[in-house]
């Protein structure tokens, strides 16, 4: 998918690669610790490898592994993973107009490989869907370059983590590098006052609603931040473009 020549021949592909390389180290550290954690929570090395290759969603994996180890019913595990992944449903609503010119199977594959940061970088770089076939193709090239780096960094580091599961103590907390990567991207998105407000409200709400099960606090945080920003926008229309441009 992301190795196709039609993508690689466009300069936007390499822009996507460059953007994601800037966070690849954090993604890698996070993948490494996810690999370590899967084995230390009770999966066999083979099961952990299959989970890495098939599921490709770190937070859902980390939520599911202890439930698998505890023998939870399948539907409960799937419902939990769905809730942990609900933010991607929001992202897919945003990305729909960028992808609808493609056949369904291709949309679904591209959705599958688009993780959090690829979505964030893509939305930052392209505030509007392309108006013609050429622009849409440029956007796809960017997305595929970005996803390629994310995929390789995540998969490679996760597999290394599984191999080293008994050598790297979780207590070192190397996974915090992944949080720092997200923090850096967060800073790069803070391009207007209302976006500062959005980050502040979401952070506070996520802490306040922490007790909710299944990481639903994240969804509550996004919903309340967006709602408050929309209300503020009505009262105090800010002179700003519809999205931040490339930093």
């Amino acid at each position, binding site marked *: 998918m992301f190795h196709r020549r039609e993508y690689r021949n466009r300069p936007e592909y390499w822009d996507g690669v460059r953007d994601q390389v800037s966070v690849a180290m954090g993604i890698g550290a996070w993948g490494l610790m996810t690999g370590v954690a899967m084995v230390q929570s009770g999966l*066999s*090395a083979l099961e952990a490898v299959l989970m890495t290759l098939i599921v490709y969603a770190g937070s859902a994996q980390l939520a599911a592994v202890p439930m698998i180890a505890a023998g939870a019913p399948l539907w409960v595990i799937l419902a939990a993973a*769905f809730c942990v992944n609900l933010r991607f449903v929001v992202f*897919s609503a945003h990305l729909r107009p960028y992808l609808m010119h493609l056949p369904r199977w291709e*949309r679904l594959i591209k959705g599958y490989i688009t993780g*959090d940061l690829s979505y964030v970088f893509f939305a930052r770089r392209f505030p509007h869907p392309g108006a013609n076939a050429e622009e849409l193709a440029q956007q796809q090239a960017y997305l595929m370059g970005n996803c390629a780096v994310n995929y390789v960094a995540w998969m490679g580091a996760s597999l290394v983590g599984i191999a080293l599961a008994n050598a790297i103590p979780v207590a070192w907390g190397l996974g*915090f590098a992944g*949080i720092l990567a997200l923090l850096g991207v967060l800073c790069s998105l803070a391009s207007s006052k209302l976006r500062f407000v*959005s980050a502040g409200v979401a952070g506070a709400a*996520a802490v306040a609603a922490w007790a909710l099960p299944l990481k639903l606090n994240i969804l509550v945080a996004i919903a309340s931040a967006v709602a408050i920003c929309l209300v503020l926008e009505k009262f105090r229309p800010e002179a700003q473009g519809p999205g931040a441009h490339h930093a």
Partner: protein
Amino acid sequence: MLDLDPWTLLTIVALGCITVITRGFFFISSKPWSLPHWAQRGLQYAPIAALAAVVVPEVVMSHGELIATWKDARLFAAAAGMAWFLWKRGVLGTIVCGMAVYLPLRLGLGW
């Protein structure tokens, strides 16, 4: 090490399907449909909100509680990372600078 429980395998494959369904939720139908205007406006605030919702609890909470001490390596690492970003605007530098503060505090002082 190479054990493969069939039920676990089924769970893993089903979890893969969940990834496809959630990441492509609104790509499944081919019917023309578009978000209402307010939702399109709102989506420009969603990415930063999603990141803050993930990041903030990971920095200021442990074991489901707000931390009560300032002696926590994560606070200093996050502050150092943000300071780097304000200064140089690079995400890679944010990670490196943050970890350079985090690891000595955590492994050296046990914060």
